[in-house]
């Protein structure tokens, strides 16, 4: 998990009809977090959808997305190697906690059960593997979601306001956990938010999107 990755966004320009929604040119090094801020409607979620590979067909996008030097903008979402953390933890309700963690692990990974146990211990949830995710608290769910993302071994991470729905007292703690882990794993991350504190805790560069 300590490989280093680099995400380069070269002259990204997303348009709807003749209207330019987002223009961006940035480089994110290993373990760095780039924060993109802007009010709702500024095209933040469109940018995320584009990078993750879910842009609706009515949008047009130009530019290059380079991950470790390879252009991934033409690849389907599942082959981009980009992980996504949503506003909600979105633990699959039909799987156990361990099932959720195993879901994203690469097929060829060995020793899945042991790695799941280790990951659970790592976030203070040892022995929770068999639990129904619906019985977890908000903070526990958020931690499982983070661990599921890391176990899927992405090469870069997109964060879609992942702290906005947490209670205030959990938010700071969760931010620390998320950013520490991403840094440890050497993953370039792009955080989209409208909360100034998120940007502060992320500690990286901040880009403001306007209308």
């Amino acid at each position, binding site marked *: 998990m300590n490989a280093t990755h680099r995400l380069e966004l070269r002259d990204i320009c997303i348009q709807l009809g003749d209207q330019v929604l987002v223009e961006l040119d940035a480089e994110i090094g290993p373990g760095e977090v780039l924060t993109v801020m802007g009010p709702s409607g500024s095209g933040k979620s469109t940018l995320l959808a584009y990078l993750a590979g*879910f842009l609706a*067909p009515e949008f047009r996008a130009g530019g290059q997305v380079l991950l470790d030097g390879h252009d991934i903008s033409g690849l389907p*979402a*599942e082959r981009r190697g980009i992980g*996504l953390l949503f506003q909600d933890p979105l633990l699959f309700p039909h799987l156990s906690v361990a099932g959720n963690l195993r*879901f*994203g692990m690469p097929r060829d990974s060995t020793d899945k059960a042991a790695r799941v146990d280790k990951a659970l211990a790592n976030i203070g949830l040892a022995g929770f593997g068999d639990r*129904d995710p619906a*019985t977890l608290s908000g903070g526990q769910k958020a931690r499982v979601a983070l661990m599921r993302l890391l176990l899927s071994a992405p090469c870069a991470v997109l964060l879609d306001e992942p702290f906005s729905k947490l209670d205030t007292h959990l938010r700071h703690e969760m931010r620390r956990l998320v950013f520490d882990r991403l840094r440890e794993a050497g993953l370039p991350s792009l955080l989209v938010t409208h909360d100034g504190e998120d940007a502060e805790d992320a500690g990286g560069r901040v880009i403001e999107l306007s209308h």
Partner: protein
Amino acid sequence: MMLRLAPVLLVALLVAPILAGLGMALLPAFGYLPALGGDSLSLAPWRALFAEPGIWRSATISLASGLLATAISLAVVLLYLAAATGSRLDRWIRRLVSPLLSIPHAAAAFGLAFLIAPSGLVARLASPGLTGWERPPDLLIVQDPWGLSLIAGLVIKEIPFLLLMSLAALPQLDPERRVAMARSLGYRPTLAWWKVVAPSLYPLIRLPVYAVIAYASSVVDVAMILGPTLPPTLAVSILGWFSDPDLDKRFLASAGAILQLGVTATALAIWWGLERLVARLMGGWIARGGRRRGETGLHVAGKLWILLATVIAFFGIAGLAIHSVAGFWRFPDALPGSFTAAHWARVLPSLAGPVASTALIALCATLLAMVLALAALENEQRTGRHPSRALWLLYLPLIVPQIAFLFGLAVVMEQLGTRPTLALVAFGHLLFVLPYVFLSLSEAYRRFDPRWSRLALTLGASCNGAFWRVRLPMLLAPILTALAVGLAVSIGQYLPTQLLGGGRVTTVTTEAVSLAAGGNRRVIGVWALVQACLPLAGFILAVGLPRLLWSRRRGMQGAP
């Protein structure tokens, strides 16, 4: 790649047989059917048709019963929805919608017949105390010449259908907030619903309403049980001519099928005109701004009529059950003097075959429909396109009268040299099962949060992986419900089985309907009860299986 073809395949599968069937009804209607020696176009079949005694009366009864049954069912459903306040009665009725919908038309019709017949349960309960009858009166209540009992039988079955369609459409209108807004302006709750929710609800259920008109104006099985006999409704007459050993009657039947198409089209046109009229009247009523008058009447009517319809349906089924085990039963005793298992014992040996073929046909048609529906919906999700406009074609098999095209389709199959087999009948059922499976499933499929699949993809699962590992298990409950709906639709089909099976494929439904003429109520009770219970088994599985499977997953309880 196969997925891309799914919507095209879906539409072609529905439209092609209907067009072919209509074509093969149209040609013989003008005397052209070389196989039977009709080589030239002529108007002879039409002259023969109009020379049939009572033909106009048949057509008029078909038209009137279609319109009246639809109007009454729609009125009862809207009245109920307006008066519903979430009370215990309301929740109870909502829970009964699905089981009521699953009762086949024929079983419900028999139930009603046993209830209202001169020697039926109602007459027994009222006699001799209220009526003074010591013996069954000599009245023609069932199969009355005006088609009133036919209309009643249709209403009982169409209420749950329209109610379910309305309940599915309502959430997108946010009725609670609309009513709250109107109430804050001084409107009483029921009036508020009629004035601010009903006008937006109707356009959403217009196609199902049209389907009810088409069905009610051309129904065969219910009309054979409850409808008038001299003359019968147009659709029943057509089936009679088609089954006539004298093959020349085929020309007559073809002309009749085209006339049926015209009758149903006329009913739809009249309804369309009524829509305009009611919209204008409603507009004036709303503009006048009355806030209180009529509230109590509308409220009481809303509770009363649906309760009556529900009670009749359930007493009807209970009546079937009692008849099936009744021994000696003197009039006017309310209950049989003795009970016996003899009727069941007598019927049981002959049940196995029809039950097996019913189940086989229903499973084939429903599973095939499910695969097609899932493929089309999954394709819609993956391409990110909005539902195609062509999908209104799904309603085509429900709006074109069955008898008009099935009959031609049977002729096409004969011409192609296809033997009547279970597979052919299952294909015929597919035409009617597919729309219901698709409509039932599309709701849940399109409402499914797209983030789940995106999440699966960003975790490295392929599109197929996301479908099998995330979407399918999470949508298990609605998928099972759609399967149960499909099975219920297939089990209840009479005409496709009869026409495409050439009378050689017997299902529980064809057996039950064919007993109608005989009038042995004990035996009919057994068959109709079996017919009513088969689809219920599907619904019980659809409700029970997810609860069992997800008993340790709270997030899946009461899922989408």
